[in-house]
């Protein structure tokens, strides 16, 4: 059991003086030591975090909304004066000159950033196995993967090394590891949180997300990080995420896709418990209806065409010239590029760069890239229709439970297909929260995702509150 699994209790203890920020931090430092074998932390910001905790303990006057909350960040988020490598050898030695806007906002509310955690290289993966720092292990069951790409974030929270962790979610990279670790994973609408300082994987999909024990903490963190940022022209003005949106007694109209709950790849226990959950929602008096959705099988293809294309371009800047790793002893520029990138990127990243390069090349652009962009619009339009009628959509988070380390490495396509339920929210830019269902003592949790229309986060959290009643 974690020392604290919610911020309110911790804050009360802080206020009563039964714990200090420094003591809390020392406790987490101890836990980081204890869980070292799980390969979660790449770097602990010991000095800076302690200095901040000491300052907070001395602080007079008004306190921030995250006063003393200890938070870890994924290694693809920039932090001034610290290395940030996206778990890639190609960024070896790179030190950021600035801090990501989202993290600046957390710090401004008196949060303490404890360190950066492991993940899949450039956020590409779903097991935290594609990392130059090696595999992250599931803290509750180290023979298994913690999910990915923000597997280090989920593991850090589950291992009780921080109260919350900030990750990124391009196709489920926050929600899936949160689900694998039985935690809450939340991704806001596209444009809700600034991407400035987030090492880009796929620019039109990437969003900052959070992994927490409680939904309320996820809501609070998203609320603080969201808002228009001068440095990111894709950010939008939206209603406050933390604003209470409706009465708990409201009866909801809930949609689900029949095929999503009856697909071949779905683990039988996940199917059983998910269907039970639908019944349970019905029993609460809400309307739960299957809606037709002809694009389910097209989600993964659409996602992979567009994200690999964007990734092949976003990762072109890693060339060994201005920062990071440079291959030794190269005779000319061409050799410098090729040797650096060949040695600097891992196999999965190179695979996606090659696919992305292919779909963007002149002869195939229309057949793949344009086609996928058009399909993306059809999917988005269909979802707008659904959300016009229904308050939310329920989807399983992952079709399978955390697999054993080393399994599933061979066929990338079967790994990609496991993203089927999480990529939808990124394709349409809507918010999505994954929450664990029944907890099992000696087994992995089944989780459910709740999605709403874009920029309806306060509504989404209201719905979850209502469903959890």
């Amino acid at each position, binding site marked *: 059991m974690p020392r604290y699994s919610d911020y309110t209790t911790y804050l009360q203890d802080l206020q009563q003086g039964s714990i200090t920020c420094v003591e809390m931090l020392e406790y987490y430092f101890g836990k980081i030591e204890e869980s070292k074998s799980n390969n979660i932390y790449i770097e602990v910001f010991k000095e800076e975090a302690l200095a901040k905790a000491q300052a907070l303990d001395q602080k007079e006057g008004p306190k921030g909304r995250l006063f003393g909350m200890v938070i870890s960040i994924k290694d693809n988020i920039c932090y001034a004066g610290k290395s940030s490598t996206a778990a890639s050898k190609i960024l070896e030695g790179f030190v950021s000159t600035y801090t990501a806007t989202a993290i600046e906002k957390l710090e401004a509310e008196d949060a303490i950033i404890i360190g950066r955690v492991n993940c899949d290289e450039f956020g590409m993966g779903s097991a935290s196995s594609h990392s130059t720092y090696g595999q992250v292990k599931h803290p509750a069951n180290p023979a298994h993967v913690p999910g990915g790409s923000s597997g280090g974030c989920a593991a850090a929270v589950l291992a009780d090394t921080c109260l919350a962790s900030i990750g990124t979610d391009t196709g489920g990279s926050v929600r899936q590891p949160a689900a694998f670790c039985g935690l809450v994973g939340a991704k806001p609408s596209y444009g809700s949180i600034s991407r*400035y300082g987030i*090492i880009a994987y796929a620019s039109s999909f990437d969003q900052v997300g959070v992994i927490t024990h409680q939904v309320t903490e996820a809501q609070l963190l998203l609320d603080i990080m969201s808002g228009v940022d001068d440095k990111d*022209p*894709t950010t939008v003005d939206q209603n406050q995420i933390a604003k209470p949106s409706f009465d708990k007694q409201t009866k909801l109209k809930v949609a689900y896709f029949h095929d999503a709950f009856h697909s071949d790849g779905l683990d039988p226990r996940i199917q059983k418990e998910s269907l039970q959950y639908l019944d349970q929602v019905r029993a609460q008096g809400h309307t739960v209806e299957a809606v037709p959705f002809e694009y389910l099988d097209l989600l993964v293809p659409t996602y992979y065409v567009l994200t690999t*294309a964007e990734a092949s371009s976003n990762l072109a800047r890693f060339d060994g010239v201005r920062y990071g790793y440079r291959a030794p002893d190269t005779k000319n520029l061409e050799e410098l590029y090729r040797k650096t990138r060949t040695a600097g990127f891992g196999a999965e990243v190179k695979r996606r760069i090659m696919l992305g390069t292919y779909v*963007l090349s002149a002869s195939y652009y229309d057949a793949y*890239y344009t086609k996928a962009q058009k399909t993306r619009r059809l999917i988005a339009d269909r979802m707008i229709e659904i959300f016009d009628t229904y308050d939310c959509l329920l989807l399983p988070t992952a079709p399978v439970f955390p697999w054993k380390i080393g399994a599933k490495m061979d066929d990338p396509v079967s790994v990609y297909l496991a993203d089927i339920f999480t990529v939808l929210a990124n394709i349409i830019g809507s918010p999505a929260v994954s929450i664990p269902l029944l907890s099992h003592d000696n087994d992995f949790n089944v989780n459910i995702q709740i999605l709403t229309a874009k920029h309806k986060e306060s509504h989404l959290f209201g719905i979850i509150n209502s469903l959890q009643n």
Partner: protein
Amino acid sequence: MDLPKMKKKAYQTVIGLEVHIQLNTKSKIFCGDSTFFGAEPNTLVSAISLAHPGTLPKINEEVIPKAVKLGLALNSKINPSSTFDRKSYFYADLPKGYQITQDKNPILIGGQLTLEDGSQINIHHVHLEEDAGKSIHHLAPHKTLLDYNRAGTPLLELVTEPDFRSGEQVEQFLYSLRQLIRYIDISDGNMEQGSMRCDVNISVRLLGDQHYNNRCEVKNVNSMKFAKQAITFEVQRQIAIMEAGETVAQNTLNFNPETGETSPLRSKENATDYRYFPDPDLPPVLVSHEFIDKLKKEMPKLPWVLAQNIKEMYGISKEDTRLLIAEKEIANYFLDYTKQYPHVKAFANLLINKLIPFCKVKKMPLSELALSKANLSEMLQMVADNTISMSAATQKLLPLMILNPDTSPVELAAKQGITQSSNKDELSTWIEEVIAEYPDKVKAYQNGKKGLIGFFMGEIMKRSKGKANPKETSALLSKKLEP
């Protein structure tokens, strides 16, 4: 290369241009680095321009009105929603591995510029993009040095239709375009510093042919003279190939200003696949009707409009008009004068022959000249009144006026005794003195050697120290010389 002395057939040259115009903003197109020219290397850079991980572009609001102003001047269609694309290729001075440009959906579409020879050059489109940094190959023996100060400088790339038929037309176009961008204040147009650079696409076809042959692109031509030289060389080269019965290969060429020749550049360039796709980091550039209307009202008079006005209103020659409108500063100076003062034609001559050359030598702008327009007008009035000769005015009075800007020209002329005399008594005295001194010459004149009048005039001028009004003197002299 051996060039054939006589061509077997008649050919037509077909040329299209791609002109890069560096916009004169304070900061770069997608980040806050300064665009100052000539700074220490790598001092005008940021995490964004160096493409550090996690950074994002955001468009500089000033580039939009500058692009729209060019569109208004060229009669282009202004795109209400233009978009940015990424153009991917690896090069050391291209930090992101792609250039942000506008491929599918540029900010300006179509338009024309009319040349002095009356022919019209159609513009295909004009798009916004960012410049690359600089690779320096000659400073260190085994290394290439990289300076990213220029990386991200805002550019407009103007692409013409293949409407040029000669190097002269290209030269005229570049001259007019540079003049235009300076008038509308979107660029300093300085070709030596690379603020205006041009790629020239050249092909040759048989006269009368409708189709275009393979073209060669000459890259980075950085002066009008070089553009003309490159075209001359390239046209001869291509004709020689065609005369030999062969086909010109499509190619990218480099121009060597020292030899005046072109040579193939990066042969791999032709095979490059730039993988253009819309940049998801940058929302479209939105331009509203209201915004365009507001800019329309702020547009200055364009050089060709001014030229027409000046020619028509003041009867000034085409050549002089060209000089008066060459630069916006001169044109404004001239037009300011015309608004308040008379003797416009004389003023135009004064400006062209004296004031502009003077300022050029002193390397100062006209506006810093210590000569008020009121004083210049007063001076020209004196010339008109025959109070002073034009040569005395420009050679003697003008320098005095510069030294004594607060004293009136009339006073200065009087004080220095350079006012010319029309006083009949005074003139008669000088004339009679001369007639008395040269009786032989008077006789010769009276016997028909009329050319001697010049001699007498010269003597009178000497005696009067240049003050004698030539017109009056000449009339009086003729009368007195009559037998």
